[in-house]
């Protein structure tokens, strides 16, 4: 189990770095989805089955579809995009540094014998999804509802095109 978790951690790190470094936004979105899928696998392996399902379906699936739809709808000039991302050439060593740093952390954790998280019994318990979410994480569900409202308000304030014109 630990080998799977550490492999997924490594994959998550690599895809995360790729998501930041890619020049193409579509590739970035796909890399982000892959990082999210790796996180979902870690959650599944540590016993948080429902969280893993939500992570893979919502974050890795739905959010990626929305990202790619938004990218395809935008008409950013390719040259302008390249200009924006030109700065990243200067940081070409960043992925290597990050990956080496991540590997060092994993080695340090294994050397020190740090045990894996002990999941809450509530998170491990199989049962009705509604019951688990409502009984154990009701405050977070309210939080998520408010985050969605805040996100909608934020998008309308920052990206409302008629106001920019």
């Amino acid at each position, binding site marked *: 189990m630990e080998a799977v978790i550490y492999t997924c951690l490594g994959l998550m790190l690599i895809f995360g770095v790729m998501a930041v470094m890619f020049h193409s936004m579509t590739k970035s979105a796909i890399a982000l989805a892959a990082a999210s899928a790796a996180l979902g696998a870690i959650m599944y392996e540590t016993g948080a089955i429902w969280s893993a399902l939500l992570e893979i379906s919502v974050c890795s699936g739905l959010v990626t579809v929305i990202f790619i739809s938004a990218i395809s709808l935008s008409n950013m000039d390719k040259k302008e995009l390249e200009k924006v991302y030109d700065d990243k050439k200067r940081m070409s060593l960043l992925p290597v540094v990050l990956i080496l740093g991540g590997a060092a952390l994993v080695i340090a954790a294994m050397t020190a014998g*740090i045990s894996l*998280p002990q999941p809450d019994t509530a998170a491990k318990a199989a049962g009705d999804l509604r019951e688990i979410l409502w009984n154990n994480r009701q*405050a977070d569900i309210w939080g998520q509802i*408010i985050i969605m409202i805040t996100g909608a308000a934020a998008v309308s304030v920052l990206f409302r095109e008629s*106001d920019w014109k």
Partner: protein
Amino acid sequence: MSAMAYIAVSFLVVPLVIIIIINLIQREFAKKVCIYLACASAVIQMASSTAEFFMLSANHLHEYRFTLLWNMKEDAEHFGVTSLSLVVMFCIGFVSFISALIALRTIDKRKIYYVNLLMTLVLGMNGMVIVTDLFSLYVFLEIVGISSFVLIALFRSETGLEGAFKYLVMSALASMLILTGLSFIFMQTGSLLYTKIGPSILIAEDGSKQTLAYVALIFLISGFAVKTGAVPFHSWLPDAHQSADTAVSILLSGIVIKVAGIYSFIVLTDLFKNVPAIDTALAILGIASIITGALLALRQTHFKRIAAYSSVSQMGYILLGLSTGSTLGLVGVIAHVFNHATFKSTLFANAAALHEQTGTLDIDEMGGLQSRMPVTGFSNIAAFLSTAGIPPFAGFWSKLLIIMALWNRGLRVLAGIALFSSILTAAYFLRLQKKVFFGKLPDKYSDLKEIDGTVRFAEIILTVVIIAAGVCFPLALLYLKGRGIL
């Protein structure tokens, strides 16, 4: 459901209902009424928190636990209010009310956006103080962060976007630190419920677990310090305060940094009682913030930046009070949170008045405005005397309690530094008062008049509260003594 349950539920439901109403009714009508609805929501919150406070006291309850809508499991109670959280919620209502009053004057075109975000901000802050789980605290902390960031960028001006971006970057850093800290604690305990976390995780037999627990504390303290704007994590605060609309600056300085930062520290010190490492870290952050904030305020020429650096300095006093780990210190902290909300709101209301009338907030361009703007001048004096801790203003009592708590804990050097730093506070405010309100009136302001309308109303209310809180503070102390708290 009992009356207490209805009131408790209203803390989340009322702002949500306001959001729904203003987004469903006809847009032109919504523009006219939205800020009044925000004022109504703030007044309801003040009344609800006061009523709940006295009900809690009458029933001799330490905490009232509740759930929203319905409960699928009898013992599942996800929210709770205490006397402390109710005081904080009163402050949230009060500062939101003042901000809405100022917004009536300063915000013209984007009123609906402002009210939507104000309500989500209030929801986030209310959520933070009523949850009973560290992860839920983090979720609501994020709501506060996102709402604040968008409020700073509300008008999408160049400076606004720059200030918002700085806040976003620092806030993201804080979130990363907090989330990592929480995950380390979760590794030890398997739960993030307040009832399941305590100092016992710091005395684990396994050395690596103990190290991990201390690393978690370092991350959490650093993350919360960013949210508080404590030195050396304060770089975002002056820029964000300066670039935002004054109605938003009032929220940021008056309540957001206290709920997002200080309240989180209160939770942390409550969970890890009498852990010397936390007390020492808070004392260091506190002293550094008091002195650095005051010294930097002395060098500023922009009214809002002086007020912002003053906030950094005053947060230092609050952190110093928390570092004592005593009840007296905690009472001083809560009193200073309330007092800072009032006198900092006053200073920003004055900033709104000055900006509306003179078109600038550069104190070098002002002078002699006392004769033209006597209400603003007087309320500024009241705010400055309270901030400096001059008796009988409210700030005197809270600082006195904090210094007494330090003295009682044997931290006499820190008490001395805190006392001495009040002179620095007086120094930068005397400079501000002299440059803005005294001296020769520039010719361009010869026709200047006092601000009218809701801004003047806010200034008068705030001045009355500062003076009344100072005069009545001994009564509050007697009440706490009567209840056996002090």
